[in-house]
């Protein structure tokens, strides 16, 4: 039994996911109240170098061919073994396609308590979760003995989870990974050929508030005036008002533009998590209670249809 905080690092095809750094930042806060170390757990194969910029006191490295790519079975086995042996104070997982396949299963397998959708920790070490589309926050004491926690972005900046000082890497023994019931066949790439919105500095992002496909033109005009690109929330992409390569959010792209300008986007957590690294978020929404205003730097409570054309004109004049 230790007071250490473990972070299960997520990576996909050689890229460490942003949530990993966010969790490293969160773990630092939690470790302070718990009085332990921040320990990153890296599962992979020949993947040591991924750990180079982790802001962690230590990296536990589990190397095995069956861990090269994520599959739930192998990862569960390796982690169950490690957690059982080391008994940390808490283990942080992403509330993601990877982490969600692990945390609940381990909670039952190891008979350990689980708190999900955690956004941040308080100074005295309580978890604060965000649920119901961001409308409700739930706070509770970190359960004992070892708390399994799944984390959503929003509470910490990924920059805070990075360091220029490479952490010490400790290889750990990997249990036998046999009788696996899940096998990765291959990856299917998204269709290419469009702009990469993750790299664009100015994004005009439209949500359901844009109402229909025709109205996308309003956003296109503003984007052209500003030298940016139009992106959208999922309802917009679902209805094929924009191609799927323009989807911002949990199931789309994470973006980090200089300006993220939203038109009629409510700010659901699955959307917001992908935009927190933006320098400046500006939100137009008719609903003063829309959660997007909680994370936007500037907000305008107004019908976007009253504003956008006027704004486009003014931008053109200012150029």
């Amino acid at each position, binding site marked *: 039994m230790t007071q250490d905080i473990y972070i299960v690092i997520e990576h996909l095809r050689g890229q460490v996911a942003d949530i990993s750094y966010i969790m490293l930042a969160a773990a630092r806060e939690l470790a302070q109240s718990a009085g332990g170390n921040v320990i990153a757990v890296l599962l992979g194969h020949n993947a040591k170098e991924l750990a180079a910029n982790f802001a962690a006191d230590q990296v536990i490295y589990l190397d095995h061919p069956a861990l090269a790519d994520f599959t739930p079975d192998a990862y569960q086995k390796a982690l169950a073994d490690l957690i059982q042996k080391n008994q940390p104070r808490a283990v942080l997982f992403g509330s993601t396609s990877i982490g969600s396949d692990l945390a609940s299963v381990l909670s039952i397998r190891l008979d350990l308590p689980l708190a999900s959708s955690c956004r941040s920790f308080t100074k005295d070490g309580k978890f604060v979760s965000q649920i119901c589309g961001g409308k409700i926050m739930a706070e509770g004491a970190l359960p004992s003995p070892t708390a399994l926690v799944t984390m959503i972005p929003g509470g910490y900046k990924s920059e805070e989870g990075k360091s220029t000082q490479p952490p010490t890497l400790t290889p750990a023994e990997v249990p036998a990974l046999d009788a696996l019931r899940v096998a990765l066949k291959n990856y299917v790439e998204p269709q290419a050929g469009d702009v990469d919105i993750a790299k664009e500095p100015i994004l005009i992002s439209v949500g359901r508030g844009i109402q*229909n*496909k*025709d109205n996308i033109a309003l956003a296109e005009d503003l984007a052209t005036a500003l030298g940016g690109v139009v992106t959208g929330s999922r309802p917009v992409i679902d*209805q094929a008002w924009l191609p799927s390569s323009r989807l911002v959010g949990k199931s789309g792209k994470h973006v980090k533009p200089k300006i993220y300008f939203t038109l009629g986007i409510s700010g659901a957590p699955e959307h917001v998590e992908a935009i927190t690294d933006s320098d400046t978020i500006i939100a137009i929404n008719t609903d003063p209670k829309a959660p997007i205003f909680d994370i936007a730097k500037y907000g305008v409570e107004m019908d976007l249809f009253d504003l956008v054309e006027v704004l486009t004109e003014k931008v053109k004049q200012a150029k």
Partner: protein
Amino acid sequence: MIVAEADRSFYDRVLQATPEGERLRLCLECGNCSGICPFGYLMAYPPSRMIAMLRADRFDKLLEADSIWMCVSCYACTAACPSKIPLTPGLMASIKEELVLAGNVPNELQNALTNSQRYGNPLGESPRKRADWANRIAPEVKIMGKFKQPVDVLWFVGDYASYHPRVQSTTRALARILNALGVDFGILGPDESSDGDSQRLAGEHGLFEMLADKNGKAFGKYKFNQIITTDPHAYNAIKNEYPKLGISYPIQHYTEFLAERLDQIKPMLKRESKAKVTYHDPCYLGRANGVFDPPRALIKAIPGVTLAEMLHNHTNSLCCGGGGGGMWLDGFQWEKAHVRLSEWRVREALDTKADILAVACPYETPRFEDAAKTVEGAAQLKVKDIAELLLEAMGI
């Protein structure tokens, strides 16, 4: 032949779908219906050809073509038919129903139907907030469930009048007028459900019955002498369809109700206006129910106003495109047509050189204001509900 068997049964069903469905047999194949249909030119099978296909046992062809979703249930074909065949509520609604039952519904329409099932309104708004539009009105608008006393007039507000932000201002205008006239009225608020008429005409008859049943129960809970409504679709449903389900109450459209009180209203219309006004007959007030004069009488009562008629008026009026599910097929129809009926209508209004396009249906203000934004030269055209015009003239 199995297909022919199925077609037969469908043909029979259409014949039975409306009291005068048997008239389908009387089709002369004159083509009047297809000629007058505003979207007829875009339909692979406009009404007369639909009948021909049915007679030729090719119902499968009709189901394959999505022509039917171009139908906005405007009643133009029905009104034009020399054989008095109830095309709109009979043939059109039955074919749509066939597609709805097969789960073959354009996305937008599916959302509206799902919302109507779930929330009792096609907008997907909280039923608890149905009376929120009345929050700041004094004297307070009585919500029957809270007020618990009989009223003279029960106002069936309707979906868009209750929830649509633009239409809410019309709704508030009418509430103020009723207050000014000293009418003893109440609303159902959260007890009110969608009238269901547009859902019925979009082919969801079961949903219509469910909603009608809810409204019937709500009516039954309270005491009142008559119903008035802001919504011509609700008017049509409560007047013509609810009685078939055993729900019978005297109902007036608000324009009829106010026109009967013109003597009381006229002295209150103090503010003169120099406006030229043209009036759009809503399909379900005019063509379907013959209410043409009361709205006009109200407009003419406003001192200084001149009333100009558009090219299509009275029975010939052009649909705004919102009826019978059209409100929820906008994107679908746009894809096919790349024109909107509302734009056509706004152009006709412009031709009269009117300052104001007056309406009497909650679908219309938002539709025409939207169209006025895109039609060239329409920027100056104001779209106003008659209730708003009256309130302005009263200066209250």
